[in-house]
């Protein structure tokens, strides 16, 4: 890996560089949430009746939860109560109703993505990555659609999928994360405005990485996107997700849902580099990242692998999980979560073993610096019928400084005596001896910290696609800025 210390240093000296605001005309609905708002969103998206019904059902469930104050409180994070009537639930860049090609996209938006390093014009794209760009509430562009369609792969915005492939959406929507799953999932089901949809047909290996780039731009707006990926029998796909938001003083809510379905012998690899605005050094502003991600290995020999690098957000609450239903199916979770300044993260995974000989691997690396609080919360559940199930969990925490915290809550539930469980955990501090050793060889203190942290995260980074791995290393260095005195 050719990470150049220079580049890292240059980056480290910058503030959150993705914090700019794009000045475009946006179409938004008034603040607040009600059945009427749900109807407006659904109408704006010209949805079929079944979608509206689904949303309304979700809304009613959420409203009852809200009334009974059932917002989850068990996570190890602190934040003032969210006023759900003070959020805009739909905001979209104003544009021509139908885009014939990327040329018709608002040039301001194109420029925004270029500034973020995500060129959307296909001739400029790096070979091998197709991008769906979600700007505030709607998907604005999807590249390489035609090329993928030749293979029968559907990669489009969720709205398009609802319009053009309603049978697939109907079949799989909510099949892994039901609308009633939890408070934030219900909220998302009610108001989600867009997201990405992927369907890879039988026997097809998707030849390029698929990627969604999420951008929150509008103020006082929540972002609620929904991603659904289905890999049919023998299909495989690798999917990347990136996210940024402008610097704003108020907190913004991001409540997404991701559902993955892997049928017989199918494989899905899902990688995230989450870099929402984390708030400033005093903890003002930043994104509340309350996300439900779950994959179902529905078929035999299927595999779902989650890799996440979480460096942004004021608060992160997410547990990308696997339901291992098919016999011999495999679930993996590789995670790096970094909290600096006043960031809080409560993240981990759930591995639910249902099928025989199902295997799961969990590798979690938590880094806390500044006043950051980092919690790993994981559940491994072996059901009665899961003969021969295996789990390996490794959970490491690294502390930088003496004002941060690391917490670990592993839950293990075994109902089949043939299960094999391994759990390893460690907590360490960046040692003065390690720092001195590296500095004695000429490395500056910041570079020494970067190097130690990168080494600590290596087991996870090597699961990332190459481009992302380099990006992730740089991001860590930026996020660690100021963590050494």
């Amino acid at each position, binding site marked *: 890996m050719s990470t150049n210390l220079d580049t890292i240093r240059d980056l480290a000296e910058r503030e959150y560089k993705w914090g700019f605001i794009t000045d475009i005309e946006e179409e938004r609905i008034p603040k607040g949430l009600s059945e009427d708002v749900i109807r407006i969103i659904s109408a704006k998206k010209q949805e079929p009746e079944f979608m509206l019904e689904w949303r309304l059902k979700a809304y009613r469930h959420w409203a009852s939860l809200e009334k009974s104050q059932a917002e989850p409180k068990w996570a190890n994070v602190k934040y003032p109560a969210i006023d759900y009537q003070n959020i805009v639930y739909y905001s979209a860049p104003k544009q021509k109703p139908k885009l014939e090609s990327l040329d018709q996209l608002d040039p301001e938006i194109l420029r925004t993505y270029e500034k973020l390093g995500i060129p959307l014009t296909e001739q400029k794209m790096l070979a091998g990555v197709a991008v769906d760009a979600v700007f505030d509430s709607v998907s604005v562009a999807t590249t390489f659609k035609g090329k993928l369609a030749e293979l029968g792969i559907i990669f489009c915005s969720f709205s398009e999928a609802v319009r053009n492939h309603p049978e697939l959406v109907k079949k799989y929507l909510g099949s892994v994360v039901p609308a009633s799953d939890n408070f934030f999932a219900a909220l998302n089901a009610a108001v989600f405005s867009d997201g990405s949809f992927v369907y890879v047909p039988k026997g097809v290996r998707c030849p390029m990485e698929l990627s969604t780039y999420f951008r929150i731009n509008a103020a006082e707006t929540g972002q609620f996107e929904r991603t659904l990926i289905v890999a049919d029998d023998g299909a495989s796909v690798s999917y990347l997700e990136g996210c940024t938001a402008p610097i704003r003083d108020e907190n913004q809510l991001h409540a997404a849902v991701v559902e993955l379905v892997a049928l017989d012998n199918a494989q899905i690899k899902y990688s995230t580099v989450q870099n929402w605005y984390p708030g400033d050094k005093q903890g003002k502003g930043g994104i509340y990242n309350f996300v439900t991600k779950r994959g179902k290995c529905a078929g035999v020999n299927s595999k779902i692998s989650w890799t996440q690098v979480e460096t942004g957000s004021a608060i992160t609450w997410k547990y990308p999980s696997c339901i291992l239903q098919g016999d011999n199916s495999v679930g993996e979770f590789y995670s790096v979560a970094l909290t600096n300044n006043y960031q809080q993260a409560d993240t981990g995974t759930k591995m639910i073993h249902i099928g025989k000989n199902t295997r799961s691997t969990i590798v979690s690396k938590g880094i806390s610096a500044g006043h950051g609080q980092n919690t790993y919360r994981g559940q491994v559940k072996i059901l009665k019928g899961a003969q021969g199930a295996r789990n390996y969990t490794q959970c490491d925490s690294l502390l930088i400084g003496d004002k941060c915290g690391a917490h670990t809550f592993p839950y293990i539930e075994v109902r089949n005596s043939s299960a094999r469980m391994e759990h390893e955990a460690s907590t360490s501090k960046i040692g003065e001896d390690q720092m*001195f050793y590296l*500095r*004695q060889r000429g490395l*500056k203190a910041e570079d020494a910290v970067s190097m130690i942290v990168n080494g600590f995260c290596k087991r996870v980074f090597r699961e990332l696609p190459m481009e992302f791995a380099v990006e992730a290393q740089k991001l860590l260095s930026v996020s660690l800025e100021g963590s050494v005195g």
Partner: protein
Amino acid sequence: MSLLEIKNLHVKVDNHEILKGIDLTVNAGEVHSIMGPNGSGKSTLAQVLARREAYDVTEGQIIYNGKDLLEMKAEDAACEGVFLAFQYPVEIPGIGNAYFMRSALNAVRKYHGLDEMDAMDFLPLFREKLKLLEMDEKLLNRSVNEGFSGGEKKRNEILQMALLEPKLAVLDETDSGLDIDALRIVAKGVNTLRSPDRAMIVVTHYQRLLNYIVPDFVHVLVNGRIVRSGGPELALQLEETGYAVPA
């Protein structure tokens, strides 16, 4: 002008005075050996030269290459050519040995306004030095010092010294934990690096190492003070009489 001039150096650790007035002059091209019993302050001297911050210099000065060494941070001293071969080399999990050494070399090169060396240029250089230390190529990508035997760790220190080509090398108990074969290899590496522009300070407990790395001067450090200085023959004498100050 001498490469290193230590004048009346007093050092405290945790409010306890360890060095109580050291005077030492080292010229380029010379090899000095510091010998002494446990707790005499040998390692403290080595760490202070490498600018470890936990050591509190209360009095005296160190002029290195015409500059005030005590004004330098550890990384600046390193870039100015001060190298410490650690008594207990530290493990850096997840960072490949070759990657680490290239980063170190590039940090030093950058300090001197030189271009950084890319992996393609670095590799042949690295391989050449591995050969000098008779080290296995598999150590290229293993994490720094992780799972290394005691001997491999010490060889890895000299490997770094060979790559970084310091002006002043301080070897802190490099012989401890080495079997006789490893000792010979390490000594060969060190002797190859002896040059008219480079000075070395070899801190050791035992005379054994000095059979292989023959010093120009030997100093005996007892209770924070240099009590005797002499030529290589002094080491042999000590082997017989011990560190006790002759009456």
